[in-house]
């Protein structure tokens, strides 16, 4: 009998060809997918070329998504994208996604069926942890790691300890996956899970859609975690069957696996939550915000909250209403498919009628790249994942983080508020 293991330990052990791995072990493991974008891949290409191999380890197991500064915002980014495009062509990278077919990487890869349960995925983007929603071990790495993995198919890992989050109860009102993860980060802090894995289990998962789970896993890095991972259930399997033909493998934590901490969270009690500048841990529930925080810009989208459910919620609130005069509301569907679905459902028309601007998929505004940069002293409410100093533009600007429901309501109100202030009750199924 081998010793008990967590989900993450099991996936890492399997990919390292070992029966058992212990937290703290340093291992080399085979990866199922290596991801890069237009910011991190150029650095990786330079490093890859130093290794001196003439091919990549597996052209089907590398995904390159130019999404940060695309469509190219300036000549320098155009040069970077050109470099990436030529690399993808030279090495016949199957999963290279050009403008027109691309999307924000972490929404795109699951949608294309490139990640399935049990996979070990690394990506030169910190939000690669998103795919933990599918029961895979996925984590952000840097460009040098990407380069070495493209050459060898392997990456080094320190096996993480894990924190167990047992969720129970059901979401109520306007509460979403975003509020749950902001609540958790507010509770444990931005380094509360440093070097660790965040494992989600419990009957509360039933009330979480796949989109909720992607949002929660996406922000594991905002608590310092190596990865966030959800137990696989019928919803996961259904999602995978709809999107992928890849074989998958379910790794379930052993009952007696060891965790450094265990948190039991009643999601029934979680209220819509907002993170104040300049750290995702500076959270307040919507009820605790007593002053009126007037905002200049609302951004709905990103790898955190640019999925179809997010757009549906925003549209529900913006339908027949107008964005407050003087406020800019920018909406980014995360992929072309999501954009198309939103068109079909009439959501885009609702947004435009409300006075929002709708953009092609890009990471641009989230990281202060382009398409929504803030000026000195401006405030934004965004459904993105970070609110660090200068994140969305000028170092004297401020970013608040929230769910799409709070963001859409605030776009109408002109200050940070809830749809309840607009007389809208949340869904209680």
């Amino acid at each position: 009998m081998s010793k008990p293991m967590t989900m993450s330990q099991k996936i890492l052990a399997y990919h390292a060809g070992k029966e058992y791995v212990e937290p703290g072990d340093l291992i080399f493991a085979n990866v199922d997918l290596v991801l890069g974008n237009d910011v991190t891949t150029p650095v990786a290409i330079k490093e890859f070329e130093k290794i001196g191999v003439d091919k990549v380890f597996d052209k089907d197991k590398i995904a390159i998504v130019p999404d940060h500064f695309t469509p190219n915002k300036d000549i320098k980014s155009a040069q970077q994208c050109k470099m990436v495009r030529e690399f993808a062509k030279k090495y016949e990278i199957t999963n290279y996604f050009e403008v027109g077919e691309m999307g924000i990487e972490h929404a795109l890869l699951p949608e294309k069926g490139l990640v399935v349960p049990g996979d070990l995925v690394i990506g030169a983007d910190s939000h690669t942890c998103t795919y933990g929603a599918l029961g895979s071990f996925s984590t952000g790495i840097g460009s040098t790691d990407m380069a070495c993995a493209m050459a060898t198919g392997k990456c080094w890992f320190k096996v993480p300890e894990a924190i167990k989050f047992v969720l129970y109860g059901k979401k109520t009102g306007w509460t979403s996956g975003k509020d749950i993860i902001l609540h958790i980060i507010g509770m444990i802090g931005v380094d509360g899970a440093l070097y660790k894995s965040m494992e989600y289990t419990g009957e509360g998962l039933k009330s979480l859609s796949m989109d909720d789970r992607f949002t929660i896993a996406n922000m594991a890095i905002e608590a310092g975690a190596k990865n966030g991972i959800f137990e696989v259930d019928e919803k996961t399997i259904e999602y995978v069957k709809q999107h992928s033909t890849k074989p998958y493998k379910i790794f379930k934590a052993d009952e007696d696996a060891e965790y450094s901490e265990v948190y039991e969270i009643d999601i029934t009690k979680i209220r819509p939550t907002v993170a104040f500048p300049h750290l995702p841990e500076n959270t307040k529930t919507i009820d605790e915000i007593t002053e009126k925080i007037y905002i200049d810009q609302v951004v709905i989208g990103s790898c955190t909250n640019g999925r179809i459910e997010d757009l549906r919620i925003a549209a529900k609130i913006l339908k027949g209403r107008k964005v407050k005069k003087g406020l800019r509301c920018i909406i980014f569907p995360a992929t072309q498919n999501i954009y198309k679905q939103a068109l079909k459902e009439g959501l885009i028309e609702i947004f435009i009628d409300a006075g929002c601007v709708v953009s092609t998929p890009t990471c641009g505004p989230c990281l202060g790249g382009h398409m929504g940069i803030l000026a000195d002293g401006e405030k934004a409410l965004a459904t993105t994942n970070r609110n660090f100093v200068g994140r969305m533009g000028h170092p004297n600007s401020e970013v608040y983080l929230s769910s799409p429901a709070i963001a859409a309501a605030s776009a109408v109100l002109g200050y940070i508020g809830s749809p309840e202030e607009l007389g809208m009750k949340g869904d209680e199924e």
Partner: protein
Amino acid sequence: MIFKGKAHKYYDNIDTDVIIPARYLNTSDPNELAKRCLEDLDKEFVNKVQKGDILVAGRNFGCGSSREHAPIAIKACGVSCVVAKSFARIFYRNAVNIGLPIVECEEAVDGIETGDEVEVDLATGSIRNLTKNKEFKAKPFPEFMQNIMKAGGLIEFVKGELKKDA
């Protein structure tokens, strides 16, 4: 490996966005990145820092993005070593992979002020504040990572491994 230089000390949760803001990520040229290092935190940093200087910070240094541009900028602007209470994990591995020496030691951070002359010995884990005549002991660097550092970073390490396999 012994590093000696003047300390520049900052606080907790120094993130990759302030180390190198995204607006400069349309290039990966180390010299260009070096000019912007820590710009949103301290505009004067790049003018003050001298070759060999040591960056000292609180908890969770390098949190945020996976951008390797952050340790690259720090290394390229002349910093020889970073001492922090803790590092964010992607920053930690990026620093190891590119051969930027980093050391975790709470007591040392508490015992060093900006301007102090500091000496760090990676092999022994000793951190000496020469100005205040105090010595601290950091956790030893795991052998696995020492091997990567010794090889000159992950690329050289992997080249060596590939040769072994051939």
